[in-house]
Structures are given as C-alpha cells and as structure tokens.
C-alpha cells in the first residue's frame, strides 16, 4: 500500500550530520551519562544478564551440594542464603529488569519514536538498579545475605527469629528495585501511548508493545503491594509495630496476602513481555503475519487481569476456608485459556508460513515444549487436593522452572539471537547457536524433569541435604549433571557473544531476517532518519521502499526541527501528531541521583542512619538539579513536513508530563489500596482490638476542613496563574502546603494516645496517618519546586507544566487523605 510522502524532495546537505551531532554518544568518562535508549537498553540488558549468570552460579553451588546425599560441602546457613539469593536475584534483578530493558531497547524504534519520552528517567532507573543490585549481591560475601526464602514469610523473618541484617537486606535492599521498576513502567506506558509514529493506531501496534503496555500496567498495580508488605515488615522489625504478631492482633498471613498479590502477577509480569517477543519473532521466522492478532492482544490483557485473582494458590496450605480456595482454583485454571490462545496462535503462524530453521526458531520451539509442560503442571497444582500433596516438594520446583525458564528464559535467548543484528555489527553464530540451544534445551530437561518425580516421591524443597536410600539419590545426581550441561550451553553463548557482539547503532547488521516492523528500519542513535507514516502492522512488508524513503528523509521530521533532541508526541488511540517534545541532553544528575538512591537504601539496611540521610539529601539535590533544567520555554510551532506544523510546548491533559503524573497517581492509589486492605484484613482477623471509643468528631472534621482548604487554595493558585498573577499564585500554593501539613498535624494529635507497638490496630492507624504525612511531603516537595520556579520567572500562564504537576498531585493527595480520615475515624464508629 502506498502512502504519500510528506517530504518527497531531496533533503538539504548537512541535515543528517546535524542529527548525528545532536544525538551523539558522550565519550570517555562522560559515557556514564548516556541516556539514549539504544545504549541504556544494552547496558540494562547486559546487567540483567550478568545477574542471571551470578544467580546461575548460586544454583550450580546448590546443585553440587545436592548431587549426593549427606553432602557436607555447604552448610545449612549458607544454603539458606544461596536459595534465597538465587530466587531473589532471578526474580528481581534478572527477570523484571531484563524484560523492562528489552522494552527500553526496542520500543522507541519499534514505535517510530526517536527515544522514550523521559530518557533521563530510564538512565536513573538503570543506574539505581545496577549500583544497588551489585551491592545487594555483595551482601552474600559478608554473610548478610537474606536467608528467609525469596518470599520472606514472617514470623520467621521478624526481628525475634531473624535478628541480623540478613532480612533487612532483602526488605530495604530491594527498595531501589521497586523504584526502578516503577520508573520504567511510567516511561513505558507514556512511551507506548504517546510516542507512536503517525498512523500507528492501537490496531496496528506491534504485539510486543501491547505486551509491554500490559506489563507496565501490571507493575503499577502489583509492585505497590510489595512496597506496602516490605514497609510493614520493616516497621515491625525496626520499631515493633505488630502487623504480623498474632498476640497483639497481627497476622502473619497478611504478609502472604500482600506478598503473593505481588508475587503471582510477577510471574506474568515477566512472561507477558517474553510472549510479546515470541509474537514478534514467530512472524519474522515464518515470513507471515501473526495468526489471530486480535485474539493474542485479548490473551495478553486477559492474562494481565486474571493474574490478580490467583495469589491465594500459593497459600492453599494455610488453612483458608475451602470455598475461598475454590475461587482461586477456578481463576488459576482459567488463566490457562489465554496462555493457550497465544500458544495456538504461534503454532498456527508457524504452520501457515515457511519457517526458517534458525536459532531463534529453535529457542521458540523449545519454549513451546517447555512452557506447555510447565503450564500443564500448573493446572495440576492449581487443583487444591493435588497441591496439598505436592506443596513444598520438588514437584513445585520443577513446575516453576518449566514455567519461568520456558516462559521467559527461552524467549529471551530467542530474542538475543533475533535482535542481535539490530544493535550489533554482527549477528551471533548460527552454527554455535544450534549447539547453545541443544545444550540448554537438553541440560534444562535433564536437570528439571527428574524433579517432578523427586517431588512426587516426597523430597521437600529448601533442604540443604538429604539422607541416602530415600530413592532420591540417582534423580538428584541426574539433575546436577543436567544443570552443568545447561551452564555449558550458557557459557558457549557467552563465548559467541564476546566474539560477535559489537555495539553499533548506525552500522548494525540490520534486517537480516526480513522482518516487517519498524525497529528494522535503518537507524542510528536518533532512531530512524525520518518518522514514517504507518499503514499496517508490518509496514516493512506492506509499504514498498519504506526503508529507503525513511533513510532519505522523505517522511516526517527528517532533521532536528528545533536544533535539539526531540520526538513527535501523538494521540493515544489514532497516533495523530500533537506536538514536538524537546528532550533533555545527557547529564550527570540522573547518575548521581541513582547512585545515592541506592546508597540510601543500603545504608539504611545496616542502620547507618546519618550517612543514609546524607545520601538521600544528595539524591534529592541531584533530582532538583535535573528537574530544574527541564521544561524549556515554548518556541512556537515548527514544520515537520507535509505541511504539518506542531507546537513545541504543551501543557494540560495533552502534555506527556500530565500522563506520567496520571501513572504515578495510579501507583499511589495501588499503595493506598493495599494499606486499606491491610486495615480491613486486620479487623477481620482481630475485631477485638478495634476500639469502642475513638477521637471526638471535632478532630476529623478539623483535619478534613484543612485538607479541603488546601485543595481550594491550589484551585485558587490555578486561577491566579491563568490570569498571569504568578507571584500571588505561588503564595496561594505555598499556603496550600501549610494547610495540608496542619491537617496531618491534627491527625497526629487526634491519635496521640495510640502507641503503635501495642496493637496491630494502633499500628495500622498510625500507618494511615504516616502515609498521609508521606504523601503530603511528596506533594509539598512538588509544590515547593513549582513555587521556586514561579519565583524565578520559569513558570507563567503558558509555560506551566511544573505547576500542573504539583496541582494535580495535590488534588489526588487531598482526596486520598480525606479517604484515610473517613477510614480511621468512620470505620471504628461503624463497627463499634
């Protein structure tokens, strides 16, 4: 299908060089400040893969220990640390970052954007993760590594039974991972919805982008449960707030609910992007469009939402009523349907096309075999009576590795082989690739298939050794041999990677697979030379000469219209260009902020409070410096070709910042929802500790009035700014902040009689109040930042994104605080 060219003529000389100059990669030590998605993406993938290797080495140590019965190579204390770190690193430091990294690497080019909309945020997320992650790993060498399992169930992990730093390293040490994942999710959601090439409607969006959109939304909903769970347990460990202490009205099962409300969707958080990659690789390998595009999109979204109804299947053995378990059994078996839809779509596509027998194809076929087996055992353990038999045995170890390695690691290897020519001068070796596949596939099955049997004949998980003569000896030896074979395959991959991978953006090997999607256009750091108009799902197959025309600048934005880094922001549904977003240049601020964010969490872990606070102050200072240089003034409209003129500034609901704030508010609402759930859950299990007398009505009414006044003052500041009265508006905003802090003070005074260490009721009420204080501080920081910019002449009636950010977040926080007041004052009255 032919699309009219917006810039059919010849481009002026020097335009491409200008584009290259603007997007060039910093050299020398300044390379660390790189923010371009091509480089951050590769660094991100590389770091995640390094953690895969490190966690793999821990697995080999465990398999060596288990090779023979009664082995004394590794003692129980170290073994506990090894399996905890293996699970934690694989899930938090490898799997989630790896798929997020693939999104950062691929999405801009796949969507026809020059970069993601918040490139410094990507760099911040990467560095916080890399610095914090390696420091976390080193805890193993100090004997401080967590040892309570990757799920960290209390009461084992409370201060009473785990008094050392080990549990704290887990609870606080992964704080930066949560921040990093959420920062990435904001970037990905806004990037997918707002920076697609003209014409790329939702119906023409690549399946990988759909998968990443669902992935990011799932992070927004699931990670907050983890944040709340870790906060509650750390509060119990550090200050004795008894959320999980049954004698004071707490309940250890609250942890399991919160953890698995995150933990089960986590499995799909890592599987869906991998499935999205497979849905890109299969059509290219079969040279035919994906069968059942709409059904595959349906499957991705359906898996995403159903995955939030499965968490109790990790708790089938905890004594929950059987009918309650049946709801989760039903949802757990139902989720097989959307997974099945995707598997059949891939098989149908392979059957319809002429399949190229390449390494990516082999890994996809391996994935189909392994993941389907893991899915089938998944349906088995979803059935309550079977789960009661298999619970905590090696059967579950086999199941979860079939799902996770089949569902995520095999697709990732397929993706490495498939997308290597996209970012490297050379493709990986096909000959060695077959060996890699053979070793990994055979090694995996030899290692993990016997574990089904070992588990069914009774071997429990997480034991550092076992007695001889139980019928487990030979099976364990075979598993260990398989694990080393799998490791040999990975080592061979590393050898090939070292031989062949040479980072290249402009001089990459290119579209060796004759794939149809936009990331295979000729590209550089600036992505494609011009931004194409998309008319189908596989534009490179359907639009003749697309690659040539794009490279010759015949589509939109063939140069740098504003003389700096920029990308087109388009409408979310139809991808109509709306404005030209000017993006930041590389800088040290995100790197410094990230390093000190990670240092803050790690120092807090070892109770070095003063240095931790210094690090937090430096991180915040770096963020202020970073934010201060953003939001350049409006520079009129610019032409991007084809007679289209776009504004260079946008505020209000169309601006990208507004959308990012929207995502942040969703995250905040999820956090708050988990706290409200915790409150109601504790009341359900311990109604006796709920008081019959609560603070008089005057307190909540005064607090609510102050919150409402604060929101009113923000509204007034908005009206004043519209009229150009910037300084008066700043004063109203500052006054709103004072009013809000006063409301939090009233709430604190109202509950001053409560001692949070005494009962779970007092603890959860104080948590609600503390959370109101935290959100007030966050909204206050945004408001102060806006006030400072207003007083420096950097905000006016038109250039007002910073003000709007503070405004909409303040409204949100006001609504949330009012809900909290109703909860802590109203609910006890209701149930008294």
């Amino acid at each position, binding site marked *: 299908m032919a699309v009219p060219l917006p810039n059919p003529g010849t481009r002026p000389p020097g335009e491409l060089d200008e584009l290259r100059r603007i997007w060039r990669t910093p050299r020398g030590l300044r390379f660390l400040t790189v923010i371009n998605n091509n480089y951050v993406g590769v660094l991100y993938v590389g770091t995640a893969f390094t953690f895969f290797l490190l966690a793999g080495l821990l697995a080999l140590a465990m398999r060596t220990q288990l090779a023979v019965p009664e082995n004394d190579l590794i003692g129980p204390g170290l073994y506990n640390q090894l399996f905890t770190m293996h699970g934690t690193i694989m899930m938090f430091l490898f799997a989630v970052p790896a798929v997020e990294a693939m999104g950062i690497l691929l999405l801009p080019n796949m969507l026809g954007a020059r970069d993601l909309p918040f490139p410094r945020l990507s760099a911040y997320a990467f560095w916080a993760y890399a610095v914090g992650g390696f420091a976390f790993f080193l805890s193993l060498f100090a004997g401080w590594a967590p040892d309570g399992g990757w799920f960290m169930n209390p009461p084992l992990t409370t201060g009473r039974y785990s008094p050392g730093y080990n549990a704290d390293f887990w609870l606080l040490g992964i704080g930066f991972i949560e921040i990093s994942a959420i920062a990435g999710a904001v970037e990905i959601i806004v990037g997918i919805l707002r920076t697609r090439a003209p014409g790329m409607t939702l119906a023409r969006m690549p399946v990988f982008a759909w998968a990443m959109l669902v992935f990011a939304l799932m992070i927004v909903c699931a990670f907050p449960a983890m944040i709340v769970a870790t906060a509650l347990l750390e509060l119990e460990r550090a200050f004795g707030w008894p959320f999980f202490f049954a004698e004071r009205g707490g309940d250890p099962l609250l942890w399991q609910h919160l953890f698995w409300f995150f933990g089960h969707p986590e499995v799909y958080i890592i599987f869906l992007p991998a499935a999205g990659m497979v849905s890109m690789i299969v059509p290219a390998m079969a040279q035919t469009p994906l069968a059942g595009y709409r059904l595959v999109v349906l499957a991705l979204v359906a898996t995403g*939402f159903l995955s939030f109804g499965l968490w109790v299947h990790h708790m089938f053995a905890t004594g929950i009523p059987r009918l309650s378990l049946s709801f989760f059994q039903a949802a757990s078996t139902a989720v097989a349907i959307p997974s099945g839809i995707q598997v059949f779509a891939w098989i149908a596509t392979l059957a319809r096309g002429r399949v190229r027998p390449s390494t990516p194809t082999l890994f996809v076929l391996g994935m189909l075999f392994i993941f389907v087996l893991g899915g089938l055992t998944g349906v088995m353990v979803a059935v309550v009576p079977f789960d009661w038999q298999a619970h905590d045995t090696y059967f579950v170890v086999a199941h979860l590795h079939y799902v996770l390695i089949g569902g995520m690691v095999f697709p990732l290897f397929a993706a490495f082989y498939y997308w290597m020519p996209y970012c490297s001068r050379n493709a990986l070796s096909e000959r060695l690739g077959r060996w890699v596949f053979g070793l990994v596939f055979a090694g995996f099955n030899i290692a993990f298939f016997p574990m089904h049997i070992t588990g069914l004949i009774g071997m429990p998980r997480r034991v550092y050794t076992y007695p001889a003569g139980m019928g487990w000896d030979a099976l364990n030896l075979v598993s260990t041999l398989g694990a080393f074979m799998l490791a040999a395959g990975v080592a061979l991959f590393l050898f090939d990677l070292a031989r062949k991978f040479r980072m290249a953006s402009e001089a990459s090997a290119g579209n060796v697979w004759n794939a149809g999607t936009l990331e295979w256009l000729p590209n550089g750091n600036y992505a494609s030379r011009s931004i194409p108009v998309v008319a189908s799902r596989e534009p490179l197959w359907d639009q003749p000469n697309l690659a040539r025309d794009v490279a010759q600048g015949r589509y939109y934005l063939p140069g740098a219209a504003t003389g700096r880094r920029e990308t087109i922001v388009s409408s979310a549904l139809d991808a109509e260009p709306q404005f030209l977003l000017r993006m930041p240049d590389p800088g040290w601020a995100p790197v410094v902020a990230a390093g000190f964010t990670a240092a803050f969490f790690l120092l807090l872990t070892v109770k070095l409070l003063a240095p931790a606070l210094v690090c937090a102050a430096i991180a915040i200072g770096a963020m202020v410096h970073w934010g201060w240089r953003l939001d350049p003034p409006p520079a009129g409209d610019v032409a991007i070709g084809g007679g289209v003129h776009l504004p260079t500034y946008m505020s209000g609901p169309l601006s990208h910042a507004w959308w990012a704030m929207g995502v942040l508010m969703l995250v905040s609402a999820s956090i708050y929802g988990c706290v409200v759930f915790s409150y109601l859950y504790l009341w359900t299990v311990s109604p006796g500790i709920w008081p019959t007398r609560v603070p008089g009505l005057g307190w909540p009414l005064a607090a609510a009035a102050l919150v409402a006044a604060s929101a009113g003052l923000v509204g007034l500041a908005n009206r004043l700014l519209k009229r150009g009265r910037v300084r008066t508006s700043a004063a109203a905003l500052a006054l709103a902040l004072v009013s809000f802090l006063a409301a939090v003070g009233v709430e604190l005074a109202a509950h001053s009689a409560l001692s949070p260490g005494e009962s779970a009721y007092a603890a959860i009420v104080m948590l609600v109040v503390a959370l109101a204080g935290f959100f007030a501080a966050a909204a206050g920081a945004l408001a102060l930042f806006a006030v400072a910019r207003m007083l420096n002449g950097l905000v006016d009636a038109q250039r007002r994104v910073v003000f709007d950010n503070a405004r909409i977040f303040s409204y949100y926080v006001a609504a949330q605080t009012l809900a909290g007041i109703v909860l802590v004052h109203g609910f006890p009255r209701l149930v008294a």
Partner: protein
Amino acid sequence: MRRVSPFAAAALRLSAPVLVWALHFAAVYGFTGLACARGWASAVPGAVGAASVIAAAAALAIVAAGWRRRAELESWLSAALGGFALVAIAYEALGAWIVPACA
C-alpha cells in the same frame, strides 16, 4: 480536552470488564472470608450467588455494547474481555454450589 476524551472513553470501555470481574472477585472472596471469621456461613451461598448474577449481567451488558461496534479494535476487545470475564465469573461462582462455605 477534545482529543483526550476518546482515549478516556476507550480506557473506560476496556477497563469496565476488568473492573466487573475484579469487583466480583473481591466481593465473593472478601465476603466469604469475613463470613467465615464471624460465623455467618449460611449467608455465603446466597450472597455469592447474588453477586455473581449481578456481575454476570454487567459483563453481558458490556459484551452487548462492545459487539455492536466490533469493527473497531477497542470495542471488540471490550466485548471479548467481557466474555472472558463472564466465563471467569461463572467458573468462580460454581464453587459456591459444590463446596461447603466455611469448611
């Protein structure tokens, strides 16, 4: 605002079936947990049944509304997710007929 509204409408259409399923799931699970903790076991089957009928009707309405404009991806997706929610709601509710409430 003019250009955001279609997105808001599409987002609402797409999230409606998800919300119906999630609300039903939270209601039946939450009520069963509370009822078993407070000794109201006899109320469970009726409450689960009523919640399921209401949720199923809502899901059906979403299917019908989306199917009318199925040529458009967002509407088709809304209808299909509604159908999926309907299956999940029915499947989850089945337990109330065959499993004793608070055993």
